[in-house]
């Protein structure tokens, strides 16, 4: 009994610690990248106390932020539901941490008997992943409701609508890969990509784009960050949170970004596969993280570049564009996998998918377009 407990802890605790420290690094990375996109420098001020060392590049900023969050006063609005107010950030964080264990993240124990240990190598990992991440929707709405604030309520409602609608393209695009592999287990999916990654197939590429966009919407990142739209409803569903609860929300959001990107890497980029992995098994962990950070860089880049969509445009995008495209993608992938002749099916698939994307986006246009202007003398 105790052994299994220790065994479980030995597997899950490192994952939690690694990803929590990566969270701190990611906040620093985000601030620096956004700053550079915006032609400024970003945080570079925090230095090691009692020393004269000045070149920290702001790497201690997350530590300072964490400390600040811990010592802030915890304010619960008058008349708010205290229990739900407390429960919401916990409910946002715990599922994110749970699904991190499902990822095929090989722990770097480089010894013979524990060669490729996954924290939780389940047979239906992908299904469980989607099931657990949808608890996030509930947590967000709970936060909006429990704050007794109209802004938060608005933010919560928008968030629920957004997250529920983008679940479908997310799952459908993952279903393409599951269909190709024939299994829900993360390990088997990674093993099936040992020769080539699924992103290099036309249906895999389309599925990746759909998955990526839907994952932005699931985690409320720009351009789908309406629920936390700073310029309209201040901070949306976490307006009334301060101190450690806010930090928990933040942590939960970033961990769910890691989790969903981890799943994207597993499904489309081959998990931990990469050069020199056979010789040094611990490299698979490095490759896995490197790929996740590649996707995170793109996400941060999008945040700094693109304006925000309005809620009805967001819904229209999910239901009228992404969902038909992902269903079509499923059919195309099924045909391609059945026919089993890449030189024939790949160009056809690519053509069909491109035409569908183009046609669907044409349907969205409602006489918007660039204009020319008259001048008066």
């Amino acid at each position, binding site marked *: 009994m105790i052994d299994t407990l220790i065994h479980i802890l030995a597997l899950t605790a490192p994952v939690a610690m690694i990803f929590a420290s990566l969270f701190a690094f990611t906040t620093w990375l985000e601030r620096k990248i956004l700053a550079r996109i915006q032609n400024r420098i970003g945080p570079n001020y925090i230095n090691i106390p009692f020393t004269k060392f000045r070149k920290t590049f702001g790497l201690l900023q997350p530590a300072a932020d964490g400390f600040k969050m811990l010592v802030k006063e915890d304010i619960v609005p008058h008349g708010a539901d205290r229990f739900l107010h407390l429960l919401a950030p916990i409910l946002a964080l715990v599922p994110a941490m749970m699904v991190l264990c499902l990822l095929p993240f090989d722990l770097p124990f480089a010894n013979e008997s524990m060669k490729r240990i996954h924290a939780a190598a389940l047979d239906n990992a992908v299904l469980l992943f989607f099931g657990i991440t949808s608890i996030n929707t509930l947590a967000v709405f709970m936060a909006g409701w429990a704050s007794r604030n109209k802004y938060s309520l608005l933010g919560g409602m928008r968030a629920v609508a957004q997250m529920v609608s983008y679940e479908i393209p997310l799952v459908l695009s993952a279903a393409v890969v599951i269909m190709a592999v024939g299994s829900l287990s993360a390990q088997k999916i990674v093993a099936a990509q040992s020769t080539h990654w699924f992103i290099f197939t036309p249906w895999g590429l389309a599925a990746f784009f759909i998955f990526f966009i839907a994952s932005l919407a699931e985690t409320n990142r720009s351009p789908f960050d309406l629920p936390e739209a700073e310029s309209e409803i201040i901070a949306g569903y976490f307006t009334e949170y301060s101190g450690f609860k806010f930090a928990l929300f933040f942590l939960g959001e970033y961990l769910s970004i890691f989790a969903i990107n981890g799943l994207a890497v597993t499904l489309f980029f081959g998990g931990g596969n990469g050069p020199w992995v056979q010789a040094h098994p611990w490299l698979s962990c490095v490759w896995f993280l490197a790929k996740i950070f590649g996707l995170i860089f793109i996400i941060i880049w999008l945040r700094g570049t693109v304006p*925000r969509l309005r809620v009805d445009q967001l819904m229209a995008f999910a239901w009228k564009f992404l969902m038909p495209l992902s269903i079509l993608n499923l059919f195309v992938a099924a045909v391609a996998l059945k026919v089993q002749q890449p030189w024939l099916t790949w160009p056809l698939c690519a053509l069909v998918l491109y035409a569908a994307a183009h046609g669907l986006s044409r349907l969205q246009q409602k006489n918007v377009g*660039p204009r020319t202007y008259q*001048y008066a003398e």
Partner: protein
Amino acid sequence: MSTAAPIAAPPYKLVRHDEAEAGLLEVSMGPHHPSTHGVFRMDVKLDGETVVRLKPVFGYLHRNHEKLAEGMSYLSSMPFTDRLDYFNSMANNWAYALAAEKLVDVPVPERAQYLRVIMAELTRLVNHTSLVGFFLNDLGALGTPLLYAFRERERILDLFEQASGARMMCNYFRFGGLRCDVPAGWLDRTRALVGGFPKFLDEFEKLLCENEIILARTQHVGVLSGAQAINAGITGPMLRASGVNYDLRKVDAYGIYDRFSFRVPLGAAGDCYDRFMIRMLEMRESLKILEQALRDIPEGPVMGNAPRVFKPAAAEVYGRVESPKGELGFYLIADGTTKPYRYRVRPPSLINLTVLEDLCVGHSIADAVVILGSIDIVLGEVDR
């Protein structure tokens, strides 16, 4: 003087919305809000996400400017005009100087006229770049276009600092001319800036004006017809975006604007996208005016022979300029003393807000923020 009056109930009823709308969600946007461009409040009634009613509430920045001016001499009010529309201090100064110069006929020397036009057009560039930046910030492009626009604005503010001593509250205009001449090399630096500005505008247009998200969010949002605009007293780029050709630089031809050739861009649809694009196009026209003014500026004094003590005879005047926000007018009643009897500022931002409710009703709350951003208000001017 003590006010130990008993606390009585107010003898009037406050205006209340009718009970048919009682089931709607009432949100008060502001006065502390990242997007309301200052301390400004909008009481919004929402049906889901759609705005049903929107009542703006003003007065949070009321500083009693008009009453203060009644107790000061004419020239002492000049620094206060800087603080009206604090983004465009030079334009405010010129409007006041224009009104006062109508009271006492002081001829303004040529160099001062040219410099006034240069300062006014540089102010127009400052205002329109800031507006473009803030507008995109409201749309959700978290600060990137804003900071790019502010990079250009910083260069112009440096020029203002070299000329007048202050970046924003310039206090540069006087009755009959300007306070002092520009330093050596200033004109060359301005020519360099004007030469480099089109590159920034091109970059902005390429990045923004065909971006699908911006098109989808600003086109057909907040449509204002030309007739509605004229009747509501809208002026400035908002009026021209609705298709009405009325630019005070052409109509009144104050200063020496009739010597410059420039065009007035007009919009056709009157929505937020048109207001945004008209300001981008106006920046290009301002660059044309600047090039011509910098080419033709003569040497000479910058201050005319204004009377020592500004004591105009009893008269009433109304002087107006095309400030970047609209028609900024000063109504002055002189009564023969050194202080104005009545000093009134006609604020373009306040009057442009007359149609805010009409534009926002039927759109979602996210659009309300975008529409407010496209109207381009500054609370210093709205509340004075």
